């Protein structure tokens, strides 16, 4: 499993490098596939509402109403129809990539299983909604889908009379099943929206909007495609005629030709097995159990910064229980905490300057304490003039060299800004490099975003004004960028030398 993930991650890294070059790190589509999914959903929903105004929901007039939209009102409803189709196809693309990417970058195991599991029914609903949409056009493709789908459903031992009989020939054609499809195509997306909301429940500040340049570019290209290459219907459905050759939307219908070679019941089994495998992936193998963040109430004043910064909604603020004169205290939900340590980085008591008593902040990771971090920084930095704080997932293995010390954290968001000030002010280092994931694509969702803001003194806890920014280098790079990282380090060291020469 690990090998598959690594191979996939490498493939993504190579592929994404092109996109990063073209779009820049913040706007690369791969960093916001989920948000793009939401975006395409809204495009499909908005265009669908418009199309519904002109759509005749009766089976006898549905085709004519779609033809009217496509040809007579091509400039509005026609474009909307094409946009409806193409945005639906784009939705499939980003969702499939999203699934593979989250798997490749191992963002599904341990306490992150929830989003993965709740995403699986969404995948099924995307297909149900898409296929039912093709049905409504009631052209030859719709006829094929109606017959093939009902024949396939009939292989399940739940229907008394074959439901394919609804589409036996033109004399048996009734609107009953068609009406059911209209109902599914309207209420399916609404239910999907509920599932999408559940899907992001354990993500605080979930990204549901892509960056504006990408949003404008994407919708622009889909509109151009809709005008240049409008979606059209095929010949009208006729249940007495065998649809021979069909223009196929492979994004939604790729599984249908399998019904020609695999018995329907067997195909159900394959799909069920595939979903089962997907469902158990977060536990293949089970993630190493890492202790959740722990609250030290005696050093906590209930400032809520950990609550604000936790990317996984794992911290709740509850009324104070220790009788001290603070309003609230944080409580960590151990089932949601991914042990990223971002809460420790947000805690104002995580300061290495503290002299009275042991260094124990209001919240921290038991297995990677702030006190240990200070000890590690202090120890052995005599010769290391550059200290790199790197996240575990970064490509920093090759960076350790003469004069460079690499300190690994679960996420760079765990680094309190006071550590940078401490290391520079106490001359434990000439320069500090923070090496994390690509911007907008933090393995722990928000670690690099918070770090950028803290170091830029825009987010509490702020980096102290006296810290020389020239001696701080923030390096945000995607996976598989070890050479670029080395280059960034070399440039930083050269810049430090220039400062020292001044």
């Amino acid at each position, binding site marked *: 499993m690990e090998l598959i993930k690594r191979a996939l991650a490498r493939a993504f890294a190579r592929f994404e490098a092109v996109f990063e070059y073209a779009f820049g790190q913040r706007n690369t589509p791969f960093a916001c596939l989920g948000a793009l999914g939401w975006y395409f959903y809204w495009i499909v929903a908005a265009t669908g509402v418009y199309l519904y105004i002109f759509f005749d929901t009766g089976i006898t007039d549905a085709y004519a109403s779609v033809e009217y939209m496509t040809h007579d009102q091509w400039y509005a409803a026609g474009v909307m129809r094409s946009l409806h189709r193409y945005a639906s196809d784009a939705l499939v693309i980003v969702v499939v990539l999203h699934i593979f990417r989250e798997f490749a970058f191992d963002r599904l195991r341990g306490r992150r299983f929830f989003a993965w599991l709740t995403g699986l029914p969404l995948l099924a609903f995307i297909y149900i909604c898409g296929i039912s949409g093709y049905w409504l056009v009631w052209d030859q493709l719709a006829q094929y889908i109606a017959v093939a789908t009902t024949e396939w459903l*009939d292989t399940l031992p739940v229907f008394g009379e074959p439901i394919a*009989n609804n589409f036996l020939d033109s004399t048996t054609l009734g609107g009953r099943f068609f009406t059911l499809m209209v109902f599914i195509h309207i209420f399916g997306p609404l239910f999907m929206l509920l599932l999408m909301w559940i899907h992001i429940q354990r993500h605080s500040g979930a990204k549901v909007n892509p960056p504006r340049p990408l949003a404008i570019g994407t919708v622009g290209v889909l509109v151009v495609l809709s005008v240049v290459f409008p*979606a059209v219907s095929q010949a009208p459905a006729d249940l007495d005629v065998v649809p021979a050759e069909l223009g196929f939307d492979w994004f939604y219908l790729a599984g249908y030709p399998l019904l020609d070679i695999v018995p329907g019941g067997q195909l159900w089994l394959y799909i069920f097995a595939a979903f089962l495998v997907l469902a158990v992936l977060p536990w293949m193998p089970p993630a190493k159990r890492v202790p959740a963040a722990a609250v030290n109430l005696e050093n906590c004043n209930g400032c809520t910064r950990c609550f604000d910064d936790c990317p996984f909604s794992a911290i709740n603020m509850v009324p104070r229980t220790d009788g001290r004169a603070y309003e609230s205290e944080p409580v960590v939900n151990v089932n949601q905490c991914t042990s990223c340590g971002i809460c420790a980085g947000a805690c104002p008591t995580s300061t290495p300057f503290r002299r009275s008593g042991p260094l124990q902040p209001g919240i921290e990771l038991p297995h990677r304490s702030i006190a240990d971090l200070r000890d590690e920084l202090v120890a052995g930095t005599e010769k290391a003039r550059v200290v790199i704080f790197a996240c575990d997932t970064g490509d920093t293995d090759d960076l350790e060299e003469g004069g460079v010390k690499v300190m690994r954290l679960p996420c760079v968001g765990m680094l309190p800004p006071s550590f940078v000030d401490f290391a520079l002010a106490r001359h434990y280092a000439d320069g500090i490099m923070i090496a994390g994931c690509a911007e907008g694509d933090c393995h722990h969702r928000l670690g690099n975003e918070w770090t950028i803001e803290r170091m830029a003194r825009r987010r509490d806890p702020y980096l102290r004004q006296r810290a020389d920014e020239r001696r701080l280098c923030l390096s945000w790079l995607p996976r598989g960028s070890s050479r670029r990282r080395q280059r960034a380090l070399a440039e930083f060291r050269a810049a430090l030398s220039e400062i020292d020469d001044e």
Partner: protein
Amino acid sequence: MNKVVQALLYGAFAACIGYLSAAPTYQYADPELAVIKLSLNHAADRVEECTKLTPQQINERAMKGEPINECARARRPLAVELDVDGTTVLSLAAIPSGLWNDGPASVYERFAIEAGAHTITARLRDSARETGWDYEYSEEVDLVPGRYFTITFRAGNGGFAFR
């Protein structure tokens, strides 16, 4: 950022969606062939005949709120056969639906066949008889290429219907 590469990637995205949303075409059926659809849904006789109860027994059961028929619930499998020009192309026994096999049995089959003149014979057995058929219908038909030919069955309408 590189606008040219960006434009190329947008173009590739649009081309991928534009092309795969309607092509390549899928050849579902050979337009030179006709397709026969056989569909029926029929309850065969029960495996055991209902026991004849006396009027007194019926009254007693009615008083107790019990069923007034005494029958084993299970039905027989439905034997169905289809010949085209004297050759059997389909022969099957459809199992009755329901957990206790007490519902109607369904058959739904679809297969392609050379267009042109054919003699089609459909047969069905729903009783305890071991030989012969309870329903049989034969007709010379002219199958049109690219069109469906439907065979249905309604016992109340006299059996098989070809259209």
